[in-house]
């Protein structure tokens, strides 16, 4: 259980940063590579993650289990597909509306990245819920979870900017990310495990 959740959280953190970094490459042909464009991308990701944390936390109140956890990953994977297929068309469309490096890139990043990163943001609080055993240790559990997922983010940033863009095309990295997310979702869905916490009657949905 712990290994599964921690692996999922690590890779989720990793892929969030992979997608965020590729955002810069996706938008630079249309809005340049200036600090404005990065500002837009980071704003959208932070905003989306904050909303995702809220949703993920809310969702974890109601009978938390790894099946639902798996569904979050599969939805995240599916949301990366239209991003990959449509980023050129969306950028082109936004460019027709405005080529302002600030608001153009903000609009384009919102359309492209808001939904995938909201869904990815739901993973962290849901992971905490699945891992927490007692109220007493909940802070430590949450701290460890954030340690693992943020470590994943550091890894994702480094790997993407130093190596992945040298080895692969942008779209291939995005499809690869979707594939990894979907596989994690399938594993969590088809190998459900009870939450570690004793406070929830979790046996209802577990075969």
């Amino acid at each position: 259980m712990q290994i599964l959740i921690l692996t999922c959280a690590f890779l989720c953190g990793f892929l969030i940063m992979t997608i965020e970094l590729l955002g810069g490459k996706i938008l630079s042909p249309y809005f340049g590579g200036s600090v404005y464009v990065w500002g837009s991308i980071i704003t959208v990701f932070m905003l989306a993650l904050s909303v995702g944390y809220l949703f993920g936390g809310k969702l974890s109140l109601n009978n938390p289990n790894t099946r639902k956890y798996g569904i979050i990953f599969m939805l995240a994977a599916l949301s990366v597909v239209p991003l990959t297929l449509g980023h050129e068309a969306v950028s082109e469309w936004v460019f027709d509306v405005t080529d302002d490096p600030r608001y153009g890139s903000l609009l384009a990043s919102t359309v492209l990245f808001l939904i995938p990163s909201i869904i990815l943001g739901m993973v962290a609080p849901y992971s905490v819920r699945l891992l927490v055993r007692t109220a007493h240790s909940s802070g430590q559990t949450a701290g460890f979870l954030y340690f693992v997922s943020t470590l994943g983010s550091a890894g994702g940033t480094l790997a993407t900017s130093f190596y992945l863009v040298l080895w692969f095309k942008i779209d291939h990295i995005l499809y690869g990310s979707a594939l990894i997310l979907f596989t994690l979702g399938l594993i969590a869905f088809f190998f459900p495990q009870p939450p570690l916490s004793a406070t929830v009657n979790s046996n209802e949905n577990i075969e």
Partner: protein
Amino acid sequence: MKSLIVKTILTTLTASALFLAAPEQANAKIIEQERSLYQNVYMVEEYGMHCMRFRKKNKNDLSQSCVFLDAPEIFVFDYYKQAMGATFFLDDPKEILIIGLGGGVLANTFGEVYPDAHITSVEIDPVVVKMAKKYFDYDDSKANFETHVRDGRVFVKRALKDDKRYDFILLDAFNSDYIPEHMMTKEYLEEVKALAKDDGIIMANTFSTSDLFHHESATYAEVFGPLYQINFKNKKTNRVIVVSKKPLPEKRQLLQKANELKGELLIYGVDTLALFDAISDEVNWDTEAEVLTDQYSPANLLK
């Protein structure tokens, strides 16, 4: 005329001697610096020149633009001279587009060589434009000059949609490392190609040594087909690429222009016959090298 030639030779010799010597910091004095959104812009006075740099240390000659204080008309860099090779291909251009103003040395010079041309310069960094005006005599209050402060690629995309077309496009956008990644790709060059008039000429300033050389050459060849490179023998610094929408003329057809322009370009320290010799259509790159695209342009990693 004679004194001009002597002055030219002397200045050129001095310049060469200075560049051969290891560039020490001893003589360099920072006269102005300003942090912009994109980089630190330094104006340096050294060896009787004003130079604009984006880094404090001058390792491997990273100056973006330089002029001699006592002979501003004479080119400091070989690449400026190589860039004048474009004049052999041009026939009285009316609309000139320069992506990457820098100090504005080339904008000024093309403005002098083609006084009837309208010269549009694009520069992302407003501080660079300010320094160009202050130290390099760039003056866009003249009727035939205009400056746009924006990303070069964004300008090109917008100009295409606005149906602008140019007789001559000069690609010279550099940051403190090299050419920005999104301005080296096949898609960008296709946009630039579309922005040129049917008989338009496109010229690019690039480095001749780096792992990127092969990828870059392959990308130009993919978009434009055959290309000319202008590179002075045994000079391992910059090379200038000349391409066109139409098939380029044979090299020997350029000789007439080289002769005609001999006197005019001498003012800048350019020997047009040496320049003619430096033009080559030799395929000296690995034609198997992967083409750079918006999907794959790890330019700074390859460098």
